[in-house]
């Protein structure tokens, strides 16, 4: 496969700056080969919406400068919109069950929650921590939101024990029935 395609694929997938040294090592290519690939990629991308930027030791894919005003509008409207019913449901599950994995949230909601969780993360409403033993992320409410909600102890949450009980029962059934 052409090196410029490999580099483009990597940068797109990672969607973050990548060290040139790391890229060279990953694909087993020389500095000269990478430089050629970068030039090829730059000229190929020129007609599209993305650009390759080199910042010292790193390379990264970004949207072209002409799109900046549109991206800015998008960002603003994203932050202005509310989290919606699905967001509230996900947030509530995290609040009552934290720390909780995405798989558990999904099982309770019955749908995939990954995009909603991203939104909650971006807005600083939840936090995620890597759980090494399960090799998965655990979600919890951000300290800022806990403050905002005025929650100091979990047990003070309205209907805490009722809700905890029904979720516990559901988990038992879910595991048994493989729901």
């Amino acid at each position: 496969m052409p090196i410029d395609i490999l580099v483009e694929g990597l940068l797109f997938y990672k969607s973050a700056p990548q060290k040139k040294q790391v890229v060279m090592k990953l694909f087993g290519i020389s500095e000269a080969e990478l430089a050629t690939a970068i030039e090829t990629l730059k000229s190929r991308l020129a007609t599209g919406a993305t650009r390759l930027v080199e910042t010292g030791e790193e390379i990264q894919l970004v949207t072209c400068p002409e799109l900046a005003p549109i991206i800015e509008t998008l960002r603003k409207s994203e932050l202005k919109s509310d989290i919606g019913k699905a967001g509230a449901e996900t947030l509530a599950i995290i609040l009552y069950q934290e720390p909780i994995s995405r798989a558990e949230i999904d099982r309770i909601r019955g749908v995939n929650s990954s995009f909603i969780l991203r939104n909650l993360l971006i807005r600083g409403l939840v936090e995620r921590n890597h759980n090494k033993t399960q090799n998965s992320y655990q979600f919890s409410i951000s300290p800022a939101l806990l403050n905002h909600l005025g929650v100091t102890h979990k047990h003070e949450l309205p209907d805490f024990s009722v809700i905890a009980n029904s979720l516990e029962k559901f988990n038992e059934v879910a595991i048994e029935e493989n729901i």
Partner: protein
Amino acid sequence: MQASTLPGFSVKTSVFEGPLELLLELVEKRKLLINDISLASVTDEYMRQVSLMQELSLPNTAQFINLAATLLLVKSKSLLPVLDLTEEEETSIEDLEERLRKYQIIRDAALVLQNSFGKTKLYAPQFYKPTVSLFLPDEYCDIEKLREAMIAAINGLPQKEAPAQAKIKATISLEEMMKKLETRITQNLQMKFSELNFGETEKKVVIVGFLAILELFKQGNLILRQNSYFSDIEIELDRGQTPTYY
């Protein structure tokens, strides 16, 4: 699992997740096309599989029994062409054939999907949480609103189907199915067995195959009477006895 405690049966019965899958397999095993003739010819084996499932109380048995009712109608009609089927029954038979043909296509399409699933994935970019830390709560970020959302989520949780209930459902279906056939026999009360044998050349096929009647006989709902060897067998509904199901 209950099935695993009875070696030999478990494999045979639990392989089939749905009645159409089982029925299609039986038809295809005989290299037959899907029509009323092939359906009638696999009815016995289908019934055997289903009664095995019932003995083992396997899940989904109710759905297998539902289809058995239609299948038994097909069989009865093939052995007893004089049997008048209601419009509803005719439709259910036509329906079954159509559903089976459609299922056949879907089953093959599913194989294509299963074979390509996860082989060459297309990847969306990884998600990185932006480094700029924001805190943007909205109207939903309120204890009472979140409590309501939580309660709504709990109310939406799937309920476990009580196994006892599933069994009752299965028995009712079986009962209904037998009732229907009982009505048929009542209508043709005192009918001679030979009269049932339209176009069938092999007696054995008729006697062994006419599961509908045998089932009713086994349950004590029918009286089979043969006055002498090789003479006609008379079939009569036993009115004196309450039906027993097992």
